[in-house]
């Protein structure tokens, strides 16, 4: 247990895709105080590795992703992306946000194409490639719909295409399937695994659903309840790939691991509740 937490930023001489080392995050509160959300969090993601972060609500999962994305600097510790210290926006990462982040004034097709257009791809070519990405996520005939005309699951698919079309080396995903119903989550999970299997990006996947975390990832990382949340557990998932989300849940190894992790997570979830209720 806790093997990855002690791993160094190098893996067989190859630089880690994402290496958070002793990261701390403190928020200045409006009242004048300081809230230490995360303290001395250390987390590595190797190239091509799919890592899930699980932790109680409010422990700082989104905050860690924002730091890996370079959207905010850590107040302590360091962030290295492929061996280079991150100082500004992480240009190698694609970020699928927790909240709705599509441009409401753009159609699904325009939303997907925009990431190429900003990089200077001619509009016609960007649109053609966006169309093929929409088809890959199963929305080939929805290109001219605006986000408000799509269901929650469809919006997440557009968001996925929007991020993947730029072919980022690192994929950051913040509870992407959180608001979806159980069936849609499974379908989306399988879609994600299919897409990921094609070129194996480094993935940092935040979820509050332990089953989803185990079913999808190579490693599951557990965070403690805040304040001063840390990475307290790190498990390798011994399930073969390629996987099918619904089948993998029947595997005895899955249950074994789930029981083991849940034992630790339960205590943190209870702590997390006590803290949020106490505030």
């Amino acid at each position, binding site marked *: 247990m806790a093997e990855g937490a002690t791993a160094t930023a190098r893996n067989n001489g190859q630089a880690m895709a994402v290496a958070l080392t002793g990261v701390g995050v403190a928020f200045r509160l409006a009242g004048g105080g300081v809230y230490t959300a995360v303290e001395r969090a250390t987390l590595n993601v190797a190239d091509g590795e799919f890592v899930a972060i699980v932790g109680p609500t409010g422990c700082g999962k989104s905050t860690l992703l924002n730091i890996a994305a370079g959207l905010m600097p850590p107040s302590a510790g360091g962030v290295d992306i492929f061996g280079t210290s991150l100082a500004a926006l992480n240009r190698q990462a694609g970020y699928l946000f927790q909240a709705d*982040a599509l441009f409401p004034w753009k159609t699904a097709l325009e939303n997907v194409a925009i990431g190429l257009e900003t990089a200077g791809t001619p509009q016609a070519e960007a649109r053609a490639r966006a169309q093929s990405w929409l088809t890959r996520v199963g929305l080939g005939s929805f290109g001219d719909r605006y986000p408000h005309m799509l269901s929650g699951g469809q919006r997440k698919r557009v968001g996925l295409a929007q991020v993947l079309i730029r072919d980022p080396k690192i994929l950051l995903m913040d509870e992407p399937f959180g608001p979806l119903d159980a069936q849609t989550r499974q379908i989306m999970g399988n879609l994600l695994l299919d897409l990921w299997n094609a070129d194996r990006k480094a993935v940092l996947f935040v979820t509050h659903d332990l089953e989803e975390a185990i079913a999808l990832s190579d490693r599951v990382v557990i965070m403690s309840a805040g304040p001063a949340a840390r990475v307290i557990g790190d498990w390798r998932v011994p399930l073969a790939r390629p996987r099918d989300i619904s089948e993998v849940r029947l595997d005895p190894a899955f249950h074994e691991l789930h029981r083991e992790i849940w034992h630790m997570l339960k205590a943190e979830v209870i702590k997390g509740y006590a803290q949020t209720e106490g505030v």
Partner: protein
Amino acid sequence: MRRVQLIVLQVLVAVVSIALWHALTTYPIFGRTLLPPFFFSNPLDVAQQVVAWFASGVIWKHLWVTLIEALLAFVIGSVGGVLVGFWFARQPRVAAVFDPYVKMVNALPRVVLAPIFTLWLGLGIWSKVALGVTLVFFIVFFNVYQGVKEVSPTVLANARMLGMSERQLMRHVYWPSALSWMFSSLHTSVGFAVVGAVVGEYLGSAAGLGYLIQQAEGVFDVAGVFAGMFVLAAFVIVIDTLVTMVEKRLLVWRPAVGEGRP
């Protein structure tokens, strides 16, 4: 069926009101006319006046003048409001410095400016345009300012992660957001452009619907005043319908009010 029913009821309201108006100004009740025609005219006289205006064609000139004034006020006020709104929203320091003055000017009843504009710009259309601009500008300004400020932080973060430069952020994020806020106040700002024009004409001019009403009032021609009001109301409804059409075209990406997400 429901739609037809609605229209029938709407027409009914007009018919009953006009019938009441006609009856009360024409037939004495217990020896007294409740609405003396001298003050309230009557529907027939008003209709005759309207018909006469259109038949002789004099009305077109006045409508045209009012339309041009309102249009200029709308365009100039909107362009100014968009530019300053953008500028203030992107430069919080400038906004903070000017904040008390913006509030001060906005709190001022604009009618008191009309004589000054007449003094500065004469009796022609420009004093009316200026009055309309002071009304339109602030509505557009506040909406654009809000629109730029209230862009969802997630959408903004997403745009940056998708590699947008400052210029691309302007074009693909701030600008559409500001425009959507501006368009949501389109009815109000267009309405105020017309108000500025008509009030300006009323206070001193040589042409326009406001002038027509003011002239009739000057000679106690109540039928003329009412006729002017009806033409003005019809004019505003036509413009409002056009605005609704433009709005529908431009804001296709927004859910209709009350429409739930599928």
